[in-house]
Each structure stands twice: as structure tokens, then as C-alpha cells.
């Protein structure tokens, strides 16, 4: 998170905007040291029928924006605590940094690993990533089944990710509670939001249908770039 704080210039590392963008930093926008809500590269209705325009609009403009605002508020409090040398206050703020910062990171990555069908959404991966999926899971279909099972098994709010192990280069599926971000040993490649707000207006309790439909709008090109 220190890297986020030190970002003073406006940086827009959205897909294609920078050849040096790395997974974890891609998609995050900042203005004068503050996190800002990144624009979507497609219209709210562009992911229909997999995800309704209404869901996309509320999810982006309200939910994601609340994470951005709360993250910035938390950072202000953290900077005050740092200026005062108040260690206890800094430690107290850690869960809020994790939750709101994680919410901002996760959603920024999520929007980018989705794409309308007209922009290649759902087109299967190729190259090294495709090979890694075949080797690890025996094929794209098998991978999708395992990812869907992981998503369905989340108890409460959370995310499922295809990740890359930084030590071994291996890919695997991991689930994270609430807004816990993919950090440390693993790099995020592909994330799917399993919070109820991500699907409820359209699918209600039938979340399995959402998990099944979202594959039609997965942007594998983005996932390939993150893997490379």
C-alpha cells in the first residue's frame, strides 16, 4: 500500500495505456495522491445478458466508488497517525486499509478482466496461458468447472481468483474473503466477484447461473497480459 501513497502524479494504468503496467497496479487511477474511480472501457449495458446494465452501473458508480472514497478517508487518517507517530492508530487502521483498498484493487482488476462479446469477451485464451490451463486443469472447460465450484463454495462475501504463484510460476484457483486482495506470494490473473451485489438484481439466489454466464464476457486477453 506504500506504493499507492507515493503516487502523486495522475497515473492511468489502464489496459493498453501502459506497456509496463503490472498485475496489481493495472487499472488503478490516482489524482494528486488520491485514488479515483477508473472509467470502464465499455458501456454499462455492454455485458448483457451476462450482467445487466443496472448491476454494472450500481456496482461501478456506487459500490466501487464507496471503496475509493473510504480508502481515501482511511489514507488521510493513516497519514495523520503517521505524522503524529501514533503507532496504535496506524495498526487500528489496518483492517480498513485492507478492506477499502482491497475493494478498490479487486474491482479495478475485475472490470478489466471483463469485456463485451463484441470486444472479444468469452473468446478462449491462447498461447502460454492456454497451455498452463491445459497442463494444470486438463482444459478450459475443466478449469471453468473448478472455478465455478470454488465460487459456489464461498461462505459469505468474497472473490475467486485464478492466480500465479510468484515463486513457482504455477497457476491455481484461490478464494478470498470479503475484499481481501491477492497480494504477497500470488499475483491476480482473473477475478470473479462473488458478493451478492455483483449479481443479485438479476440472479437473486441463483448465483450458479451468474457464475455460468460470466464466462461469456471474460476478457482472456487481459488475463494473458497479466500472466505474461
Amino acid at each position, binding site marked *: 500500500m506504500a506504493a499507492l501513497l507515493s503516487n502523486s502524479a495522475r497515473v492511468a494504468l489502464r489496459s493498453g495505456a501502459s506497456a509496463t503496467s503490472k498485475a496489481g497496479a493495472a487499472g488503478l487511477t490516482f489524482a494528486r495522491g488520491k485514488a479515483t474511480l477508473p472509467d470502464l472501457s465499455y458501456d454499462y449495458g455492454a455485458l448483457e445478458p451476462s450482467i445487466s446494465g443496472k448491476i454494472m452501473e450500481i456496482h461501478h458508480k456506487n*459500490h466501487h466508488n464507496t471503496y475509493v472514497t473510504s480508502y481515501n478517508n482511511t489514507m488521510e487518517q493513516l497519514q495523520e497517525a503517521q505524522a503524529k507517530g501514533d503507532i496504535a492508530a496506524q495498526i487500528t487502521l489496518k*483492517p480498513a486499509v485492507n478492506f477499502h483498498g482491497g475493494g478498490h484493487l479487486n474491482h479495478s482488476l475485475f472490470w478489466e478482466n471483463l469485456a463485451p462479446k463484441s470486444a472479444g469477451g468469452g473468446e478462449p485464451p491462447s498461447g502460454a496461458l492456454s497451455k498452463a490451463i491445459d497442463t494444470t486443469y486438463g482444459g478450459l472447460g475443466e478449469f471453468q468447472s473448478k472455478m465455478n465450484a470454488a465460487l459456489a463454495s464461498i461462505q*459469505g*462475501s468474497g472473490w475467486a481468483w485464478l492466480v500465479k504463484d510468484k515463486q513457482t510460476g504455477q497457476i491455481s484457483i484461490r478464494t478470498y474473503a470479503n*475484499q481481501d486482495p491477492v497480494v504477497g506470494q500470488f499475483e491476480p490473473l482473473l477475478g470473479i466477484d462473488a458478493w*451478492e451485489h455483483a449479481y443479485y438484481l438479476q440472479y437473486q439466489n441463483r448465483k450458479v447461473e451468474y457464475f455460468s454466464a460470466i464466462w461469456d464476457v471474460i476478457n482472456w486477453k487481459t488475463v494473458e497480459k497479466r500472466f505474461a
Partner: protein
Amino acid sequence: MSPKMGIQGDLGGLFIVYTSTPPFHSSLHLTHAYIHNSSMASQTHTLPPLPYAYDALEPVISKQIMELHHQKHHQTYINNLNAAISAQASAASSNNAPTLIALQQKLRFNGGGHINHSLFWNNLTPPGTPGNNIDSAPTLRKAIASRWGTQDTFVEAFNAELLNLQGSGWGWLVSKGGAKGQLDIVTTKDQDPVNGPNVPVFGVDMWEHAYYLQYLNNKADYVEGIRRIIHWAEAEKRYASGLESLLKL
């Protein structure tokens, strides 16, 4: 095993000796049914009916939310709880310790979901009903006043805790250590139940499915609305007598 409601720290608390007849006269019970087959009789939990109509909590909670929440969400916890209990029985009969251990989280989650929702339905009541009047909770009201000063201060503190929850979970007013104990506000994550011997006086479901179709991301309005449909008479009973007299499990 405690004969009380299964709000123990571990899932052992769910494996309680059931009475054969649910106490339909009481204001709260977890219902269950017997299934007989050739070799053994086993019990399965069944969805308890709501004590009011699906639209009775409007305008605070819409009919559509109540229907989905009760018929789909609560029912799914019950189905998965029954499946886990059945899997546990066969694992126990074959002495399969790894499977027994692997089942604990499923039991906790789905058993907690069943318990929490059963408590929740019963600590809500349509606005304007007799039980909705805080005058029906004299002992509890006094205890709230001595703990928080005023009812409003309590509600503010309670609502703030609800809104601070990160992710899915529940907010509870609990009586610590048993009936007529010190009051406290606690939150539990996902479907974790309130651990005994603390008594859940009332609970509020903060999962998004509890409010999203009506309030979207505006959960503060949902929380503000809930205060208008608390079943104070039920809360008073739980506070004064604990759950033992209400739940015959």
C-alpha cells in the same frame, strides 16, 4: 451436549437431543421432521413458517425480499444442513475422522444460517403490532437505559456496528452470560451464530440478500428501517428468560 439452542462455540452444539414434537405454541422453534426408512429413523430440519405474511413488514422490507429470503435462502441453509448432518452420520458410523472434521465448517455455516434466520424472523414484527411497542419490553428497556443512557443512544450505537460490518454477517444485541445479563452489541461474520452462554436478544441480517432488491447499496436506510419492526415483546422474553424456554431442541 446442551439441550439449549445450538449456539455453542463448536458445531457439537447442533447435535442436540430433539423433542419429538416441536412446540408450535412457542414463539420460536426450529422445526424438524422424522424420516423413516427400513433401518433407522433420522430427523431432518424443515423450514419454519413465518409468524406473519410475506408482505407484513412492508414498507420496511418488501414482500419480494421476504419471499426469496425465506423460501430460497433459508431453505437452502436447511437443505445443506440436512445434507451435512446425514454425511456426518455416515462418516461417524464408519469412524471416518478426516471426513468428520471436513464437515465441521459446513455444519457451522448451514446450521448457523438456519439458527440465525429462525431467530431473525421471530424478532421482527409488522409495524404497529402490540409486540412492536417498546412498552412490551420493560425489563429490557431498563437494561438498555442503564447501559446506553437513552434508547436513541443505543440505536445509534447498534446501527453504527451494523454499518461497520465488512462483508456478510449479522448484528446482535446480546445478553452476556445468560438471561438478564449485561447487554452488548456484537457482530458475527457470515453465518456464525452467537456463542453460548450469551443470549441473542435480537439480530439483524446484514447479508446483501436481506435488503438489496429494495435498498441497493443504501444499507443505512435498511438499518434505519429495521428499528421500526423490532419485536420488542419477543426480545423481552429472550432477555428475561433466555432461549431455553422458547426453543425446545
